[in-house]
């Protein structure tokens, strides 16, 4: 090959090699920036279990506690409310809670350890609003034959008193039940369900 002749093949090779190397380097340089937006160690460490005393909760009342930055509801259900849940089966999308998130011990008719107490994360499974209480069975603008439950003001999802979502509503799943356990008759721990000790 003459001294001044261009080696096109070599040029193309060098061009490709430098492009690939630069691309890899740029991708690698992006990693720390992208990763810096993930939850920090402090955010990950937060989220300890919380203890709730429900001795002051009257039948039909609701209490909100904060767990991992989210509202967790504890509702003390009356016998009428429990009866209403049984009549809700045909109206709700997933009566047996087969799709929704709940610990195995809350996958039952009332979605609870003790039927009297509903414990659920008060965040709509649609887009994360917190539904509002419509606990009384009475005609409501969104449902003339309302059995009591929760109404999401953002997009109109309805949940019954077991946190089960009504059919044909934007929310796809029932309200999730967090892991929890009773320590004593009227005290429960949310975020921890290890038994014994």
């Amino acid at each position, binding site marked *: 090959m003459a001294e001044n002749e261009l080696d096109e093949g070599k040029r193309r090779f060098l061009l490709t090699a430098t492009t690939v190397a630069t691309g890899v380097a740029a991708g690698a340089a992006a990693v720390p920036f*992208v990763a810096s*937006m*993930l*939850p*920090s160690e402090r*955010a990950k460490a937060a*989220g300890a279990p919380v203890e709730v005393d429900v001795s002051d909760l009257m039948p039909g009342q609701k209490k*909100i506690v*904060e767990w*991992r*930055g*989210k*509202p967790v509801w504890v509702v003390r259900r009356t016998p009428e409310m429990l009866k209403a849940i049984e009549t809700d089966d045909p109206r709700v999308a997933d009566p047996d809670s087969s799709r929704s998130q709940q610990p195995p011990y809350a996958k039952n008719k009332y979605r609870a350890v003790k039927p009297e107490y509903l414990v659920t994360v*008060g965040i709509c499974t*649609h*887009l*994360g*609003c*917190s*539904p*509002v209480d419509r606990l009384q069975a009475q005609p409501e*603008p*969104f449902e003339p034959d309302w059995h009591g439950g929760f109404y*999401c*003001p*953002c*997009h*109109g999802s309805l949940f019954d008193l077991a946190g089960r979502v009504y*059919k*044909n*509503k*934007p*929310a*796809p799943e029932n309200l999730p039940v967090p892991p929890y356990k009773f320590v004593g008759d009227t005290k429960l721990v949310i975020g921890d369900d290890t038994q014994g000790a």
Partner: protein
Amino acid sequence: MAATEKKLPVTGAGPFNGILTWVEQRFPLITLWKEHAAEYYAPKNFNFWYYFGSLAMFVLVIQIVTGIFLVMHYKPDASQAFASVEYIMRDVPWGWLVRYMHSTGASAFFVVVYLHMFRGLLYGSYRSPRELVWIFGMVIYLSLMAEAFFGYLLPWGQMSYWGAQVIVNLFDALPIIGPDLALWIRGDYVVSDATLNRFFSFHVIAIPLVLVALVAAHIMALHEVGSNNPDGVEIKKNLGPDGHPVDGIPFHPYYSVKDTFGVMVFLAVFAVIMFFMPEFGGYFLEYNNFIPADPLKTPSHIAPVWYFTPYYSILRATTDNFMVVLAAIVTLWSVGVVTARAHRPIRILAMIVGALLVVLGFVYVERLIFVGVFVAAALASAAAMLVSRGATARAYRTLFIAAVLLAGFKLLDAKVWGVVLMGLATLIFFLLPWLDRSPVKSIRYKGPLFKTAVALFVIVFLVLGYYGTQPVTAAGTFISQLCTLLYFAFFLLMPWYSTIDKTKPEPARVTW
């Protein structure tokens, strides 16, 4: 020597000729001024609708300047943000004015941008050769939405908090990557201090830089191809002896004066709102945002700020029932395409029977079975498409697309499709240059079909916007669903109705 190459002295600037010549030899200051103002020839027939481009730039300047001063007092910290905004309102000298300028400016920005986009729609300003002007403009519009969304979290009121919660959760709905993506955006398991800090960063640095760069690109692309006008005819086709369009006039001073008048009128209206009704009845500043953010309690009625509500309505309209309607429409379309050459009665019968079968299957058949059947159908049509050619291949392609959509409609929740439709509703504007097949650009020469479609689209957009501000009702959902279908029909049917429409001939030169 580069500095001595441009010998031509600058003229017409009186005592400044010398210094400007010195600058011009080192930086193309006068050249830029001439290219983009003094010798940028714009059509002479601009009307009222042409105010809004310059007004949008003016509002951008208002937002940047007021933003700089707000940042001097604002604290991007979840425990101090709300109080720091109240501090600006009450204790910072003139802070209330700067803040109200910024909050009113946000809504004003969307008002002028929507009117600016509507002008493009009226006069076909997106048509060749202005596709990139339109696309840059659409990217500006999307960036503006991001800017507004990030900024709305900063006061850390109830609407800030829950608005951000809902929008970030939209990403959560996406299959597979959704939850991790939402976590990455928030930087925490819920909207929190980490989220506020990064939204602040995006709002004051990242997006404004992008916006300014895009505005520059928008104007460079515009000045490359030249402005459209209400007649939609190219003024560059008629050049005078001086090489300039005979129907063009220099932007400066003719339109700089006109636009200055526009700015004056705009400022008068802006001042009335800013001084006397900065909340604008809860539309510009929502009442619930005067309550500090409470992660445990959603306000009883939440709605985004007015400029997002049309898309929010589309999101809410996408329920399980609506998915059945979409499945029926996809079936009607695909069967209609496949049977295009059959006799009309047979074709209609096939479409109706097909749609009925799909609807019944969609409602009554188990999810996995339905999905399995249509995935199999999609694979079969894909295989058939590969071995056939011409019209047959196109028919199989249609079947493939339909089968994939139907399987997807059933496989993924209506929630996911709501997010998808909302995203498509904003992105579909990008396709406008290729959807409009009319031989004429301007609405002045378009036929009754296009005029009706545009009028209907405006009504649909406003109705969707209205219902987006309202609580959910059965009637509202139904109307929103109807409007969602019409919204997409406006775009997707445009290649058809813009082709068969009866247009009037365009004039050779611009009129008034």
